[in-house]
């Protein structure tokens, strides 16, 4: 009797979770199917009509997207912003993380506490002053400007994460390397970086995603020649209905990269997002 009830309960749980799963998939499926329909079809009926008339589906929107100079430029800008911003954060934070964990310099503890405090500083507070600063430096409206801003606001978390990871390394390992006469640089590149690979991977994925998906920072710091995909698409959103044949495939292209990264590096991804959520 109990087993029957438990079985029934489990059946209900399964059914409930299936429904939740379907609900979660529907918006994404809707976007994908919409991206395969013409603006005219979208104006005349919902994406679910493709199940009765699959003739609407075509990749025309995507080939049009390839021809669209603005969109392809924006796509490359996104790459040109995300990749350097990720690499720079990883390198700079790894250097600093190692120093905070194992090297001796005045004010080490106090400075690191400041870094911890900076973890939750909202990006918004930096927009105006940094815009002024970049204006004076000629970085406003350029890709390097966007990259630098992302690097700076990614650093507190990156340094925090890597310092804590490096600090877990056994002391004997480092002392042995120093006894062998290895320079700090050598120890850093040959020992610390390889040992820190899991944390570095999580950090890199989190930072890449953060920058790739950003709209706010680029909205201010990029001009029309350097703007990434998010900003380019955002500028077309006012005429949502008539631009849907650009917006839907554009949004899909912009999300397909992070989703592929997500499935390729599930574990690092989840760890990175978990750790980075304090931001």
């Amino acid at each position, binding site marked *: 009797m109990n087993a029957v009830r438990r079985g029934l309960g489990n059946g209900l749980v399964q059914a409930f979770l299936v429904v939740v*799963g379907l609900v979660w998939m529907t918006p994404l499926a809707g976007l994908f199917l919409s991206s395969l329909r013409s603006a005219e079809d979208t104006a005349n009926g*919902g994406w679910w009509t493709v199940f009765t008339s699959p003739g609407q589906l075509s990749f025309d929107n995507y080939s049009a997207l390839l021809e669209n100079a603005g969109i392809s430029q924006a796509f490359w800008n996104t790459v040109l912003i995300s990749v350097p911003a990720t690499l720079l954060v990883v390198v700079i934070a790894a250097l600093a993380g190692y120093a905070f964990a194992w090297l001796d310099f005045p004010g080490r503890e106090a400075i690191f506490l400041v870094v911890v405090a900076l973890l939750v500083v909202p990006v918004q507070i930096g927009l105006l002053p940094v815009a002024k600063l970049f204006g004076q430096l000629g970085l406003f409206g350029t890709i390097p400007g966007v990259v630098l801003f992302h690097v700076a606001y990614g650093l507190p978390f990156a340094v925090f994460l890597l310092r804590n990871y490096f600090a877990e390394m056994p002391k004997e390992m480092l002392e042995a390397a120093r006894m062998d006469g290895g320079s700090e640089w050598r120890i850093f590149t040959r020992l610390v970086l390889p040992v820190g690979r899991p944390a570095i991977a999580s950090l890199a994925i989190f930072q890449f995603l953060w920058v790739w998906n950003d709209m706010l920072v680029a909205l201010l710091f990029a001009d029309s020649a350097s703007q990434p995909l998010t900003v380019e698409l955002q500028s077309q959103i006012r005429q949502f209905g008539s631009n849907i044949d650009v917006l839907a495939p554009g949004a899909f292209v912009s999300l397909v990269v992070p989703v592929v990264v997500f499935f390729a590096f599930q574990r690092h991804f989840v760890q990175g997002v978990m750790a980075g959520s304090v931001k």
Partner: protein
Amino acid sequence: MTATLVKEASRGAAVGAGRERARRSRRRARIIALLFVFPALLLLGALVVYPVLFSVGRSFFDASGTRFVGGENYAEMFRDPATLKAIRNTTIWVVVAPALLTGLGLILAVLVEKVRWATAFKLLLFMPMAVSFLAAGIIFRLAYDEDPDKGVLNAAVVSVHDAFQGTSTYPTARARDGQGLAKGTDGSYRTNGTVSPGESVTLGLVGVLPADLPGDARPAYTAAEGKAGPGELRGVVYLDFTPGGGGEQGKVDRRESGLPEMTVEAVQAGKAVASTTTAADGSFRFEGLDDGSYTVKLPGSNFAAPYEGVSWLGPTLVTPAIIGAYLWIWTGFAMVLIGAGLSALPRDALEAARMDGANEWQIFRRITVPLLAPVLTVVFITLVINVMKVFDLVYIIAPGPVQEDATVLATQMWLVSFGGGNNQGLGSALGVLLLLLVIPAMVFNVRRFRGSQR
């Protein structure tokens, strides 16, 4: 003696040289250490610390930045209706979203443990975390479209509504003036005169396109010819329009169609005493009516405009709608984090409770939730911090005219500083407010870190 002295001296010199070398190498080590941290400190100092200080200072100056106004910008924040609205909406966000997410995450984390495909489910729900707010915004702009023929949400709402309420078949139908039917204030029609059992009536309507007629509609002519039996009140509802012309107004002509599935009521002394539905040829009949005079009524539900669903992105619902999109993105996060806490729970406590005959609900209430409290707190706080800074989703999903109804602190800060407001004094004050709101989290982080170092 001298020799020893010399020896001593030279040893002293050697120690001195050793000390000197040690000091030099320590200095070298410090310089190297500073070189390691320098890039990070430079960027953090110039682009994070300095801007924070600058914004705090700037928030005490007016829009042009030339006149010191003290706390005026902060006072303005609570006077300006738009900013006040933003504060109110951010409060709604902070009160509603983290609690919902933590609750939903907890329920799903507990339930998903019971199925074999837990990993697949977790992946599916976590995936939206990889999607940008912009893409999510576009996804939900589509889903929330007001037209039930375009927005999936309204399509669902309308079909559920229609399944329970039924649809009106003739939203456009109306009666010609002076043809014996009077329109009521509730959209219904009733006969001007009265009828008694044993009589029959014809009720002619117009305004229905032949193409909009139900497929099973038949001509009403034969039914209109039929005579009512004793104690029977009968009649026909028909479309008083002959396709292709001809025909006479107010009469059932040969080719004129009946209007099936129309609700008809017999009314006596203002009360509906009987109700029926017309057949394919538009005919209806009431049997077993008491003698007396009746009016025949076509209730307004026959002519109601079709239900159009919910205006998700209208001024009243826009914030809940955007919170809905936010739930889609963050539920997986809450579920996975709580799930990790769940798998770290002591198995014996749960097993012991089960042995004692506790049911699943009691175990959940009395054991799982209290033991999970620290994890739930971390999830909740994390979400509060993130919710306070929400920007993109509001900026993208709220359509232009509704933008000011949906505005939150981050979007308001943007609008005031860069989006036309051009008041960087007030903008800076809003930025500082955002910073002040996360200071508790800042203190919490620093405390926790110092605690972990002891």
